[in-house]
C-alpha cells in the first residue's frame, strides 16, 4: 500500500514534470510566434483582438457588474460592522483598499473570466483539434499560434484589466451605498478614508495585475485546448485542465503581487 502510494506520487511528479516541459516549449513558441507574425495579417489580427475583447469584456459587463454589486455590499457591510464595533472606523478605507481593490477585485474578476471565457477558449480550440481545423490550417502554412492564440492572449489581457477596474469601481460604489444605508457612515468619512488608503499607483498595479492574469488565462486555456487529442471526449478534459491551470496561475499571481508589495 505504501509502495503504491510512493509509485503514484512518483508518477504524478513525472507527469507534472512532462507537462511543465511541454508548457515551457509552448511559451517559447508563443514568444517566437510574436516576432514572426505575418505583416499581411495585422488587419485581421486587430479584428480578432476586438472580437475577443467584445466577448470577454463587453458582453460580460452585466455579469461582472452584478457580482461586483453583491461583493461590495457584503464585504463593506461586514467590514464596516466590525470596524464600528471595535472602534476602527478610520481604518475602513485601508481595509477596503487592500482587500477589495488590490486583492479581491483582481482575483474575483480573473475567476469570473476563467469561468466564462477561459472555458470557451479551451473548448473551442479542443474542438478545432478534434475536427481537424488546426491541422488543416497548419497544412496550408498557417501557424495556429498566429491565428488562434496570440489575438486571444492580447484580447483577454485587455479585457481582464478593464473588467478589474470596473469591478473595483462598482464594488466601492455599492459598498458606499450599503455603508450609507445600513451602517449610517457618512459619504465624507467613506471617501476620506478611501482617499487616505489608496494611491494612484494602485490603479496602475491593479491594471497590470489584471493584464498579466488575463494573458495567462488565455495562454493556459489555449495551451490545453491545442493539446487535446482527436476524440470528442478530449474536449471536456481540456476544459477542466485549462480551468485548473488558470485558477492556480491567478492565485499564484495574487500571492506573488502581495509578497512583492509587502516586502519592498
Amino acid at each position, binding site marked *: 500500500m505504501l509502495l503504491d502510494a510512493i509509485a503514484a506520487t512518483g508518477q504524478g511528479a513525472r507527469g507534472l514534470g512532462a507537462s511543465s516541459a511541454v508548457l515551457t516549449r509552448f511559451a517559447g513558441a508563443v514568444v517566437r510566434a510574436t516576432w514572426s507574425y505575418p505583416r499581411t*495579417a495585422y488587419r*485581421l489580427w486587430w479584428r480578432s483582438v476586438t472580437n475577443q475583447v467584445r466577448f470577454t469584456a463587453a458582453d460580460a459587463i452585466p455579469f461582472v457588474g452584478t457580482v461586483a454589486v453583491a461583493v461590495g455590499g457584503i464585504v463593506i457591510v461586514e467590514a464596516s460592522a466590525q470596524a464600528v464595533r471595535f472602534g476602527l472606523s478610520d481604518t475602513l478605507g485601508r481595509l477596503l483598499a487592500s482587500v477589495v481593490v488590490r486583492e479581491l477585485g483582481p482575483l474575483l474578476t480573473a475567476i469570473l473570466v476563467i469561468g466564462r471565457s477561459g472555458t470557451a477558449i479551451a473548448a473551442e480550440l479542443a474542438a478545432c483539434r478534434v*475536427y*481537424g481545423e488546426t491541422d*488543416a*490550417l*497548419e497544412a496550408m*502554412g*498557417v501557424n495556429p499560434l498566429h491565428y488562434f492564440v496570440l489575438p486571444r492572449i492580447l484580447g483577454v489581457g485587455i479585457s481582464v484589466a478593464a473588467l478589474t477596474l470596473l469591478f473595483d469601481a462598482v464594488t466601492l460604489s455599492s459598498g458606499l451605498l450599503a455603508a450609507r444605508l445600513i451602517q449610517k457612515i457618512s459619504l465624507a468619512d467613506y471617501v476620506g478614508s478611501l482617499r487616505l488608503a489608496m494611491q494612484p499607483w494602485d490603479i496602475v498595479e491593479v491594471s497590470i495585475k489584471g493584464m498579466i492574469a488575463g494573458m495567462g488565462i488565455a495562454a493556459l486555456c489555449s495551451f490545453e485546448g491545442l493539446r487535446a487529442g482527436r476524440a470528442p471526449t478530449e474536449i471536456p478534459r481540456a476544459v477542466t485542465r485549462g480551468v485548473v491551470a488558470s485558477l492556480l496561475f491567478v492565485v499564484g499571481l495574487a500571492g506573488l503581487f502581495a509578497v512583492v508589495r509587502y516586502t519592498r
Partner: protein
Amino acid sequence: MTAAISATQLKPRLPLAEWPDPVSLEVDEGGWVVIRTTPARSGALLRLCVGLDEPAPHGNIELLGHRPGQLRRDAAFHFRRALGVALQPDGLVSNLPMLRNLVVPLVYSGQRSPDEADRRARAVLDALHLGDWTDARPSELPPDLRQVAALARALAPEPKLLLLEDPLNAVRSRQALEVLEYCKRQVPTALVTVFRRSEPLYDLADALMLWDARGLVAATEGVA
C-alpha cells in the same frame, strides 16, 4: 521529368497496423496519381507528406525538394505554402463564413494582403459555383458543396502540388468531374487518395495505384 514527390522505404515511426511494410512512391511533376486505399493508410501517408506528424518517419520522403519531417517549425510553415491540401475531416473553420475560410489561410500564411486574398477567394469560389455561399458557415453547406469548398480552399493559394484525401465522394459524378478538371487545369501535379471507386478521378488520373495488405502497386482501372 522531375519528381514532385519521392518516397523510398517509407513507414511511419509510430507503428500503424495497416502499414506494416515500407512503401515507395513517385509522383512526377505534371502528373495526377490516384491511390485507392484505406482511410488509415491514406491519412498516415498524407500527414507524412505534409510533415504534420512527429517524429520523422522511417525511410525518406521528399516533396518539391524538401524533406517535410526534418524541417524546423517555421521552415515547415514556409514549405507548406507551396501545397494545396484537403484532408479528412475537411477542417473548414466552423465559426468562419466560407469566404473567410479561404481568406484566412492566404493572409495568415503571409501570401497575400486581405484585399488580394478577398479577390482571389471570390474568384475561386465563383469558378467552383460557390459564389452564392460566401457568407454561409460550413455547417450550413450541404455535404457535397462542403467538399467542393474544401477543394476551393486548397486551390486558393495557387499551389504547386495538390494533396487530396478522398475528395468529392459525396458529389455527383458529373459535377465531380467538372470540379476535378478545373483542379487539374489549375494544378497539374497531385497525389489523391480514395477509399472507394471514383469514376471521375479514375478518368483524370495519369497513374492509378492500389494499396492494400499486399503493398502499394500500380493498378488498372478494373483492378482498383
